[in-house]
């Protein structure tokens, strides 16, 4: 939804926060890039040290399992 003016559909994005174990500075960058490349993901923010990972995404366009796969593929465990 367009949050500036309130126009647009109301099927807005979901914001999820994960705690991820095992980040390095390098794989955190990689995860950020891979998540942003998913169709419905609009915003990603990662604190590599705390593992705190914020993902703003549209459940209509991207399944949660596709997001989890980005962590799995790199041997990371993410908890909601």
């Amino acid at each position, binding site marked *: 939804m*367009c949050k500036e003016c309130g*126009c*647009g*559909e109301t099927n807005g994005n979901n914001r999820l926060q994960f705690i991820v174990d095992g980040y390095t500075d390098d794989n955190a960058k990689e995860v950020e890039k891979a998540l942003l*490349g998913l169709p419905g993901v*609009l915003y990603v923010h990662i604190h590599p040290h705390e593992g705190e990972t914020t993902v703003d995404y549209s459940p209509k366009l991207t399944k949660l399992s596709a997001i989890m796969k980005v962590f799995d593929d790199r041997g990371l465990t993410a908890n909601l």
Partner: protein
Amino acid sequence: MAVTIDVKADILGKNDAVAEELRNLFKEKHVFVLDLMGSPGCGKTTLLEKTMQALKDDINMAVIEGDLFTSKDADRIDRYGVPVVQINTAGGCHLDAPMIKKAIENIDLDKLDLLVIENVGNLVCPAEFDIGEQKRAVVLSITEGDDKPMKYPLMFKLASIVLLNKTDILKFCNFNLDGATEDIKTLNPGVEVLPVSCSLGDGLKPWLDWLREMVRSVK
């Protein structure tokens, strides 16, 4: 003369259904329809002017101009002898499918190869609305700053092609072309990103080739 139509209320719930109906109609008529988007002043109309100069003798094109109130852009298009319909949104920040449905009543689709719709200048709202287009193109001028793709991600995620315009003044603008290109490709791995100067006509060949290819693809 440009035809002007006024549109006020948009019917939100109906938008996607109308957009799908339009897309089917365009397919049936073999018209390639492009939604051209970007901020106010990024160079959309200048790009269209250069595009018309290059293509109008080989390709039957028409333009729909979205504008809040004026017909300034439609007047610029009209000078090239290309059919143009002006949609005035009466202050509305984006075009929607019902507006396009109304506008095409004034266009002979049977004779058309390419319809370009210049959306209202805005990096936010137009991205939310399917207007029946086959593809979206976004113009980002380097005067806007290289942080804009990540700040306005939806616009860049849904584009098939992004033009980074005004490269003629790159040295004054502190704009990282490689960085912006990488950000756009991070958001949208399949997208084409082209640095161009619409004023000078520099770098436009891949854009014109892409348009020709798209027009061929719907024949």
